[in-house]
């Protein structure tokens, strides 16, 4: 019975969320009120640097959305819209792009936004001393930026890049004051200077970041609900890593907004009028388990398929997520328009799994019920990053461990801290792994499944964890990354995804979960359609 009820609950929940979004975006009957301090409690890790050029992870993006802005943004429909750049043109050969910048925009240190500033930012991202990872990878095809005139910047490229606008919309490529970037990295990390609606005033490590309103703000993205400075006078950005205390703090009104809301609290929040939920799945890849095809036993496609068939993902999601997460059958997030979904490939079927394993020669079973071939147990090493997988996800892996055991798989779960987890991947001793990857646009497929992605960097890290090495797939991804013909691009990405899904390299689970809970006194908060970080620009307090 519950099996049938849950999708209904899920649908009702989505409906509620949609209603919630429209009411918060356009409050009926009450005009926005200026003033007040909003307290935001984040469960993500505390950034080591507030400049998202340095490194470039999601916690940085969350807070940087409040004080930094990018050249372009995206609207709800997923189309690129103007932000700091008002228009842009691509040359016929695709090797240069001219961006026209918004007039009269000033950084909060008083310096103007101009083409020189854009050039300085790209140079900063590409300078090895900056230590950028996300922004650096996104600008791989960019050879430099030249100043055409004060408000026109020209990007020159080595090969055409159909993902350039998607890349530039991300907070990790936000535009900062060139004067501020010249300061030492330590200083810039403490107080980055942008054009955004808020200004970083103080960062007390391990406690909070204080932000105040930028009273001269005049550069909201095209899809914002108002113009001029933000309504809120200030934001207190607190670090509250314990999910239970974070929710309790929200319930009691000590904080106004929390992120990383756990599934059970989302259900509880729905029952009260005091709290509102925002569900904003992250773009890029779906959350999936990657099967390492480079070493035994997953070098055999039949064994990969057997594992996927014997993993009861749906029951696990039902039990752990209470309808807050929807099963994915795609390599891409549901917000990616070019993503394709193949539910048929992932049906739970123990009989089919048993048959596949028999065919692959894993015919014997030992006394514990695990399959054995040539004296070797069908054992799978699964390092789990406790920093990246939320508790519900770790429980999901435990449940998959139990269901795949029926088919005869012995899954060894190893919860590890981030640094040991990277170490385990670098040593190529894993059979299964789940790693999130956020990037705007389907170009994420190139990062995750191109043969080049299997080559470890000097540190030992690589992004292609399933270790797919397929020349046909590589060719498709390169062509898709270069063409600007939308139809051809869609077709190429579809073919690429067919290879990835049909080869049983991944077991898709759900979108990268990204749930915010706010007190109903907070109005106007929305998630940016780019990487789903919340923006407080339109937010106001009715209390």
């Amino acid at each position, binding site marked *: 019975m519950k*099996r049938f009820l849950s999708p209904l609950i899920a649908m009702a929940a989505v409906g509620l969320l949609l209603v919630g979004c429209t009411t918060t975006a356009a409050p009926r009957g009450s005009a926005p009120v200026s003033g007040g301090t909003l307290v935001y409690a984040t469960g993500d890790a505390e950034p080591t640097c507030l400049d998202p050029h340095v490194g470039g992870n999601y916690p940085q993006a969350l807070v940087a959305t409040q004080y930094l802005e990018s050249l372009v943004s995206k609207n709800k429909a997923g189309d690129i819209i103007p932000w700091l750049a008002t228009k842009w043109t691509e040359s016929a050969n695709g090797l240069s792009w001219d961006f026209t910048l918004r007039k009269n925009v000033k950084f909060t240190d008083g310096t103007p936004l101009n083409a020189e500033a854009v050039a300085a930012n790209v140079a900063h991202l590409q300078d090895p001393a900056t230590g950028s990872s996300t922004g650096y990878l996104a600008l791989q095809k960019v050879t430099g930026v030249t100043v055409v005139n004060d408000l026109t910047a020209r990007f020159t490229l080595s090969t055409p890049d159909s993902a350039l606008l998607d890349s530039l919309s991300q907070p990790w490529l936000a535009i900062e004051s060139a004067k501020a970037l010249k300061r030492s990295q330590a200083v810039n990390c403490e107080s980055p200077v942008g054009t955004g609606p808020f200004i970083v005033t103080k960062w007390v490590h391990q406690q909070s970041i204080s932000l105040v309103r930028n009273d001269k703000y005049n550069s909201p993205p095209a899809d914002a609900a108002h113009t001029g400075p933000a309504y809120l006078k200030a934001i207190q950005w607190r670090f509250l890593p314990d*999910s*239970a205390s974070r929710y309790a703090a929200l319930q009691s009104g000590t904080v106004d907004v929390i992120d990383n809301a756990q599934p*059970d609290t989302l259900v509880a929040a729905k029952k009260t009028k005091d709290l509102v939920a925002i569900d904003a799945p992250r773009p890029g890849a779906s959350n999936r388990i990657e099967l390492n095809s480079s070493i035994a036993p997953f070098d055999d496609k039949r064994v990969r398929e057997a594992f996927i068939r014997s993993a009861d993902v749906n*029951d696990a999601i039902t039990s752990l997520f209470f309808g807050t997460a929807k099963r994915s059958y795609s390599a891409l997030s549901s917000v990616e328009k070019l993503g394709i979904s193949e539910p048929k490939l992932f049906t739970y079927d123990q009989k089919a799994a048993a048959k596949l394993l028999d065919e692959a020669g894993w015919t014997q079973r030992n006394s514990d019920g695990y399959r054995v071939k040539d004296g070797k147990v069908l054992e799978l090493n699964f390092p789990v990053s406790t920093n990246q997988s939320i508790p519900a996800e770790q429980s999901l892996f435990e449940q998959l461990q139990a269901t795949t055991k029926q088919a005869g798989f012995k899954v060894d779960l190893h919860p590890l801290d981030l640094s040991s987890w990277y170490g385990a991947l670098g040593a190529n001793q894993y059979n299964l792994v789940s790693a999130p990857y956020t990037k705007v646009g389907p170009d994420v497929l190139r990062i995750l499944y191109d043969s080049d992605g299997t080559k470890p960097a000097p540190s030992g890290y690589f992004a292609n964890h399933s270790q797919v090495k397929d020349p046909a797939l590589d060719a498709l991804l390169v062509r898709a990354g270069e063409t600007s013909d939308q139809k051809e691009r869609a077709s190429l990405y579809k073919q690429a995804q067919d290879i990835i899904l049909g080869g049983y390299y991944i077991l898709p689970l759900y979108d990268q979960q990204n749930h915010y809970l706010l007190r109903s006194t907070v109005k106007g908060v929305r998630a940016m359609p780019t990487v789903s970080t919340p923006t407080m620009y339109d937010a106001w307090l009715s209390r």
Partner: protein
Amino acid sequence: MRRVTLVLAVAVIVFLVLAALAPDLLAPGNPLAIHPLQSFRGPSFAHPFGTDESGRDIYTRIVHGTGASLLIGLAATAIGVGLALVFGLLAGLGPRWLDFGTTRFLEVLFAFPGLLFALLFIVIYGPGVVTSTVAVGLATAPGYARIIRSQVLVVRRAPYLEAALVLGRGPAHRLFRHLLPNVAGSLFVLVTLGIGQSIVWASSLSYLGLGAVPPAAEWGAMLSAGRTYISSFWWMTFFPGLFIVLSAISTTVLGRGIQQRGRLS
């Protein structure tokens, strides 16, 4: 009243020992068996302590986890008392300079408050069941050592030991025939009191995410898994926590009971 609490404490300990030695007798189910569609059920007749996030029966898991949890407590106490015995005997029996050196060393160790020492140890060797057990053992050793040293000093000046010395008995004889038997009584009390505290410490480390890890049915690990759901499903944390508290209280009561009996006789 004192008698009643003692009887209750012994009853709890008997239950725990039974659970550790023959868990299937008290809870015939499989502690690792999942039933995803029966997850997060509150306490009921079928599941007296409710079910967890994977539909596993919490009562069964607690009973089957008793062995591991008690073992961690016992091992940590054994490490602590064992080290303390070495230090205490060295200080109490050795020459003056050895006593001086050992006492200074213990003083240095005392300057690391318990949990700090354990955390320092975990930084070096990484989190896990073994490390957290050893860490708790090491962290508690200085306290035990101080008690043992003072006991040894008292016994050393006792007339029967001086008599043994006069009779020309060797140090081994004095140690095993006279000293240890006389220190053994208070050692036993120390161990009994220590096990409960060690379980509390080890579970604190597990709670902080530095000890045993799920899906093991160890109490600290169960707590750590349940803390995420504390606002919605209290039983996931309450019952494992209750057993930690109960074992700590009953061992304390038992230890005190033995101590008092020793004093009266």
